[in-house]
C-alpha cells in the first residue's frame, strides 16, 4: 500500500478514489477508516469527496477533529503528499492544512456538471504543459464557493498556489478558484473530481493527468492507455 484513502462516515467517493489510484494508475491504494492510524508505509494520502458527518455544522467541520487527522497533519508537516477532493478539500481547509474556506454556492443550487477549467502554472509538477491549458472535470457540490481574506488571497496569488480556475464560474468562488495547493507544494485541494474522469465511459479523461501529476513522486503510475482499453 502506498496511497491511503481516508474514509469518514459519509465519505462516498472513497471507493472511486481507490479504484482510480489503484486500478487505473496502478499505484497500490487502500481505504483507511478515520479512527485508525495512518499506516507507516503511506507515501501519499487522498481525502475523498462525499458528505463527511452529514455536512453538519459546516462541510468538513466535524471531520477535522477525527482521530486520523493528527496523523495526517504530522504526515503533511513532514512533506507528505496530500490531495483533498471536494469534501476532502473542505476538510483540509477546516483543518488549516490549506488556507480559506468553502461556503454555499452563490446560486444556492447544487452544481453538477462537467466543468471547464483553466490549468495554472502553479509548480513544475502541476502545470499547463503537463496537464493541458484547459481541461474539463466533473464537479458536484453545493458548497464550493471559495473564500479567503484579502491578504491571504494576495499571498496565494503571489506564490502561484492556484492550481485550477473555473472557466465560467459555477459557484461564485473568489478569483474563480477551483483548486489550490499549500505554500510548500505538498498539500493539494480541489472541488472538481479527477477520479470521475478516468475511464472511457466517463465524460472525459482529464482526471488522469491530474492524478498522475499528484502521484508523480511515487513514480509507479502506469501510463494512461489502460483507461481507454
Amino acid at each position, binding site marked *: 500500500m502506498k496511497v491511503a484513502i481516508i474514509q469518514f462516515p459519509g465519505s462516498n467517493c472513497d471507493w472511486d478514489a481507490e479504484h482510480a489510484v489503484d486500478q487505473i494508475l496502478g499505484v497500490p491504494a487502500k481505504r483507511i477508516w478515520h479512527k485508525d492510524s495512518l499506516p507507516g508505509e503511506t507515501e501519499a494520502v487522498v481525502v475523498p469527496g462525499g458528505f463527511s458527518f452529514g455536512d453538519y455544522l459546516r462541510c468538513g467541520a*466535524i471531520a477535522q477533529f477525527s482521530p486520523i487527522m493528527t496523523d495526517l497533519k504530522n504526515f503533511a508537516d513532514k512533506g507528505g503528499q496530500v490531495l483533498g477532493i471536494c469534501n476532502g478539500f473542505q476538510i483540509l481547509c477546516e483543518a488549516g492544512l490549506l488556507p*480559506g*474556506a468553502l*461556503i454555499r454556492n452563490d446560486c444556492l443550487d447544487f452544481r453538477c456538471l462537467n466543468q471547464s477549467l483553466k490549468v495554472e502554472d502553479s509548480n513544475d509538477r502541476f502545470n499547463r504543459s503537463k496537464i493541458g491549458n484547459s481541461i474539463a472535470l466533473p464537479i458536484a457540490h453545493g458548497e464550493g464557493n471559495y*473564500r479567503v481574506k484579502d491578504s491571504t488571497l494576495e499571498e496565494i496569488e503571489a506564490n502561484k498556489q492556484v492550481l485550477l480556475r473555473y472557466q465560467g464560474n459555477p459557484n461564485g468562488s473568489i478569483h474563480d478558484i477551483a483548486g489550490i495547493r499549500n505554500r510548500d507544494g505538498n498539500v493539494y485541494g480541489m472541488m472538481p473530481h479527477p477520479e470521475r474522469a478516468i475511464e472511457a465511459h466517463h465524460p472525459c479523461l482529464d482526471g488522469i493527468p491530474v492524478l498522475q501529476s499528484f502521484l508523480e513522486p511515487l513514480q509507479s503510475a502506469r501510463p494512461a492507455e489502460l483507461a481507454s482499453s
Partner: protein
Amino acid sequence: MRKIWLKGWGNKDSNLNVVKVMVYVSPKATVLDPQGAAVQQAIKSLGHASVDAVRVGKTVTFEIDAEDTAETRATIDKLCDGLLSNPIIEDYRYEIVEE
C-alpha cells in the same frame, strides 16, 4: 437544582450546577451570504421593500455541568472557535443562562 438520570442508579436529585449556553453563529460582515441574499429576495417579493441586510446564521445550544467560571468560559470559547464556527468566514457570540 436539576434532576439527572444515572444509569443503573435510578433517579437522583443533584445539586450540580449546570450552565446552559446559547451560541449564535453568523457569517462575517465581509463574507458573502448567499442564503441571506436569497431570503432578502423573498422578503422583498412579499412587498417589504424596506427590509435590508438579511443575514442567515445558526444557533447552537448546549449544557455544561460546571459553574460559570473563567475556566468554563475558556472552554466555551474553545468550542466556538473552530468547531461551532469557522473564524475565516463566521463570527460567534454566546449567552450563558444559569439553571
